[in-house]
């Protein structure tokens, strides 16, 4: 414990270094802006802005991106409350009570509660993260290629079992992400693979950023334009320092359920497919169940705003736990962070703690600082963020497109990748309209090379015997949980069918 506190103190000191601290502030502000824009969330901000982090050292870069992640989680509430449109899917549950409060002229109350709850969620989850990460990383040091591969199978199985999307379409999305990751030179034999039409641009493979920016930049913007038709109406917010302080005192109304929601959010967040959106919905449900006046939920109860906001912030920290300790991202945003770490020359996983402690603890320290910084910036500049929401889409959309195009060019500096990015954006949008989930593909393209390497190494060491995945206990446990996860929706479906048949027989 003493060790952890010492390392944490070092991390905090690192977070206050001038470069890192300015990255935190800049990241929080950009995150708040991105999060507040309807339709755009942390994943879009991180994908579009990752290329510009080549400017600073890796520690500052991850701190910047983590601050964006945090800021966006806070910012999502701003548009949920003032526009009634979730700033990101993670803030959907915030609309339920945030919108009625804004309509009743109490937007300030809702916005302050959202900020305070996000802070509580962030703080609880960062403490949990600090306690859980080092032992988990130490445990994961025992993992060989077979365990690594089984763990990835488990990560993908969570999408099938918990994602809630059409199962064949989810599996398709995972597989196409993995196939896209194989394009280029084979890591083991060095042979060129899947070089379509002998186009040399495919030789260096498809950078995960090309897919991520295409889907989360261009595809998402097209989707948002379709959903909003470029028109939004903003509720007026009047806010003075005095009112904010009065609103902050309301925190005692919701601190209990918020703390519970935060812990729940943290653990749900560590699961790759679950993450912040279901966590916030579950937390909302808990707050409603434990409330003395459940009937006021959905009509403008402050606890109804606080609970989901606490959970989505906690989940964002939770999703970093498997990324840092196991090298398996807990959400699409952390998948992009993980890809970024590979670009910066780091190998995510348990060794990170022993090989690059300054990186890990700098990140953890910065999470504490970013949480506080975002709270202060958010409360101080709420009126400004609300004003930015009125920015017409004819200014916002071209700016995002331009950032996507230059951001897609930057990593490999070929127009080939920019064209691919555009193609992925349009195809991703068309697929999303047909309910194909896109997040699994992004996770898969990041994990693809790692998955293939661990599979081939395992099979080579066992002389081609696939039983290796069942003979090692940790690997077997992962596979069994994965199978159970895949069977959950099948079982539910059968049960529903049976119930329906029974219902028919009774009538």
């Amino acid at each position, binding site marked *: 414990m003493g060790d952890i506190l010492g390392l944490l103190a070092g991390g905090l000191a690192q977070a206050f270094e001038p470069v890192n601290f300015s990255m935190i502030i800049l990241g929080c502000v950009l995150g708040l802006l991105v999060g507040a824009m309807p339709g755009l969330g942390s994943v879009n901000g991180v994908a579009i802005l990752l290329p*510009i982090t*080549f*400017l600073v050292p890796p520690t500052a870069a991850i701190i910047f991106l983590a601050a964006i992640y945090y800021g966006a989680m806070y910012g999502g509430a701003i548009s949920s409350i003032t526009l009634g449109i979730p700033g990101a899917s993670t803030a959907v549950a915030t609309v339920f009570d945030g919108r009625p409060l804004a309509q009743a002229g109490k937007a300030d109350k809702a916005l302050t509660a959202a900020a305070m709850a996000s802070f509580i969620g962030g703080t609880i989850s960062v403490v949990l993260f600090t306690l859980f990460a080092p032992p988990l990383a130490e445990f994961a040091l025992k993992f060989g290629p077979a365990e690594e591969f089984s763990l990835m199978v488990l990560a993908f199985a969570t999408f099938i079992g918990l994602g809630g999307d*059409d199962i*064949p*379409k989810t*599996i*398709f999305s995972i*597989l*196409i992400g*993995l*196939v896209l990751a*194989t394009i280029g030179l*084979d890591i*083991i*034999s060095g*042979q060129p*693979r*899947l070089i*379509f039409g002998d186009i040399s641009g495919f030789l260096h493979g498809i950078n995960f950023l090309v897919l991520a920016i295409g889907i989360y930049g*261009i595809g998402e*913007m*097209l989707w948002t*334009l*379709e959903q909003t*038709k*470029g028109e939004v109406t903003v509720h007026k917010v009047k806010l003075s320092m005095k009112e904010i302080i009065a609103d902050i005192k309301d925190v005692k109304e919701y601190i209990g359920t918020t703390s519970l929601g935060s812990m729940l959010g943290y653990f749900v967040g560590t699961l790759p497919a679950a993450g912040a959106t279901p966590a916030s919905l579950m937390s909302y449900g808990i707050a409603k169940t434990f409330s003395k006046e459940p009937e006021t939920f959905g009509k403008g109860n402050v606890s109804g705003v606080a609970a989901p906001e606490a959970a989505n912030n906690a989940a964002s920290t939770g999703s970093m736990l498997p990324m840092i300790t196991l090298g398996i991202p807990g959400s699409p945003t952390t998948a992009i962070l993980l890809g970024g770490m590979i670009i910066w020359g780091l190998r995510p996983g348990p060794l990170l703690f022993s090989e690059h402690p300054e990186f890990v603890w700098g990140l953890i320290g910065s999470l504490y600082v970013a949480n506080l910084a975002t709270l202060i910036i958010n409360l101080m500049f709420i009126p400004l963020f609300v004003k930015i929401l009125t920015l*017409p889409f*004819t*200014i916002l*959309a*071209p*700016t995002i*497109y*331009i950032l996507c*195009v*230059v951001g897609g*060019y*930057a990593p490999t*500096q070929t*127009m080939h990748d*920019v*064209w691919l990015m*555009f193609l992925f954006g*349009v195809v991703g*949008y*068309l*697929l999303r*309209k*047909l*309910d194909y989930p896109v997040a699994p593909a992004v996770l898969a393209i990041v994990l693809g090379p790692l998955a*293939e390497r661990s*599979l*081939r*190494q395992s*099979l*080579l060491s066992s002389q*081609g015997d696939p039983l290796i995945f069942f003979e090692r206990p940790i690997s077997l446990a992962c596979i069994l949980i994965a199978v159970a996860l895949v069977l959950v929706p099948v079982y539910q479906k059968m049960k529903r069918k049976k119930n329906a048949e029974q219902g028919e027989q009774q009538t």
Partner: protein
Amino acid sequence: MTVRTAEFVMAIVLALCSIGLMIKSAELNIGWIEGRGPGSGAWPFWLSTGMLLCCIATLWRWFRKATPESRNTNLYMTHETLVIVGTSAGAILFLLAATHWIGIYASLVLFLLFYLKFVGRHTWMLTIILTIGIPVFIFCLFEWALKIPLPKSITEPLFYPIYDLMYS
């Protein structure tokens, strides 16, 4: 085209892509190589096979009308959506194509001019500020701070004086 038709067409297109990927992977060794493990084509081949099976499952569900999309007879793209999404996609397409020809900065100016003035109908004042401001910002960020040169094509000579200033 209705959503139902779109679901069918998409599944067929994706199935054809999967078959294409299987054929392409099979050009490499998809079996076991003694002492070296699975051939380099094996992993993508079996993944593409899985993709094909998913498409077949989707088609089967379409046929049985098991998914919400396969029962939906609304338009896949309404006229309004087509206009708003088509304008964006068309403008980006132009931006990329023009970059090969006149370089990214000149293309950005035309792209912004089109979007701000003809789509957004903003004032000339705002249009001019953003049309010049955004490319200048991109130039400073990428060429100056990140040292990543963006494609300039035939407009390259126009940048020589700026390079002289930057690197002198």
